């Protein structure tokens, strides 16, 4: 069972208490953007097998959205962090590197 610690209320919540929200740090494209950009934003996903940044909501707890870094191949969780950031924080990148020295943010 997947357990993530909510960075807001500090509770280690199991997946039945959480709602998944898909890939994190999507760059949004709105009206006026090209068809390619809009298609990419709406539909195309790298769907990585490995380190994945994703959105979660502590639905059955404090209700806040937060972000998590997790390996989709092993379900190893590297950490969770605030949703108020447009890109992975230095701390979470360091936490991933500590366990996966070869990994780099593409």
């Amino acid at each position, binding site marked *: *069972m*997947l357990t993530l610690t909510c960075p807001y209320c500090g509770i280690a919540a*199991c*997946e*039945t208490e959480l*709602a*998944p929200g*898909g*890939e994190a740090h999507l760059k949004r494209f709105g009206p006026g953007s090209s*068809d390619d950009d809009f*298609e*990419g934003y*709406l*539909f*195309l*996903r*790298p*769907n*990585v*097998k490995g380190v*994945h940044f*994703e959105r979660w909501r502590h639905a059955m707890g404090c209700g806040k959205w937060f972000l998590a870094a997790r390996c*989709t*191949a*092993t*379900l190893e969780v590297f950490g969770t962090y605030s949703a108020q950031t447009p890109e992975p924080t230095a701390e979470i990148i360091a936490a991933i590197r500590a366990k996966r020295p070869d990994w780099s943010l593409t």
Partner: protein
Amino acid sequence: MRRYSAFAIAREAMRHHSGWDRAWRSPAPKARYDAIIVGAGGHGLATAYYLGKNHGIRNVAVIEKGWLGGGNTGRNTTIIRSNYLQDPSAAIYEKARSLYETLSQDLNYNIMFSPRGVMMLAQTEHEIRGYQRTAHANALQGVATEYISPRRVKELCPIINIDGPRYPVLGALWQPRGGTARHDAVAWGYARACSDMGMDIIQQTEVTGVRREGGRVVGVDTTRGTIACDKLGIVVAGHSGVMAERAGFRLPIESVALQALVSEPIKPVMDVVVMANTVHGYMSQSDKGEMVIGGGADGYNNYTQRGSFHHVEETVRALVETFPMISRLKMLRWWGGIVDMTGDRSPIISKTPVDGVFVNCGWGTGGFKAIPGSGWAMAELMAKGQSPLADAFSLDRFREGRFIDESVAAGVAH
């Protein structure tokens, strides 16, 4: 290839079964093929089979990272039906179902197709309206289904509890020619027929890269060296995103785990397939007597081929209310498979941004039932550049907003 027949069994019985051939050859890869299919699951092997049978393209290799039929082909709940709402879906799934009817004879391999009937229970007012609408749509599409009453449900499946307090059965969508088949045999039968046509099935070999020259595919890198090809079909289900990245494009797909479980074998208690979409569970009884139970999919990206306990709890809790007699059954096995989900829950059978590369993916939670139709359409697309069955499922439908929205039609995992 020696054909299987009653006479062959009698002949071999007389000589200690010493005359059976291997079902398929396992040759070393050649330097070049006309077409390479990545992925020796049901869809990949069916694609190769119809390339040879319908289009005469027989210089074909099917390359598989693991073993033949070891992915989702061997991990599903073997249900075959075609009662879809949208016209393009009904066309391809009904093509598949009709091919399944004669597939054993076609392949000379017993795939144990059992058209025992599939019923999808309506347990909410919303589902009643939804399934009646689907039944009307199916009538127009030429797919034989009907909307039946709770009394008829009880007649067809006596172990069902139709007036449970929480999930009463209000009716059902009934497809009498739906059913099940032996999933491994589908892969094995296609593999044997492909091998018989001279195609090479290359197992334990991973495709690690796609070679391109001027926007066109020229070959693949594998763990057993580089192999040249004119056309490449990527038919790898859950790992489609990984393969697409190697070929240099992205897909509108996310991979999640879907799980199923089987009980200990018991005496025959139900001879139909029952799907209960409101409660995310479906059940049938295998020929061995096991109750085969399918559950829900995870909501998050996942490449681990295992289930999560809370899904089992949810699925079984709901099914026990609908089938009270299963409450004391012990579960024998439990497994997960990686399914490739698209936004509209319909598959992709399409050309790609790379010339000569085709993808067949996105079957999500419902790929097994589609294997023959999917292979038929994919082979036609690879051979001719277009296929009436496949055209609606092209990759650019997302960009153009031409969704084939089956997530509403099926309610959940289908």
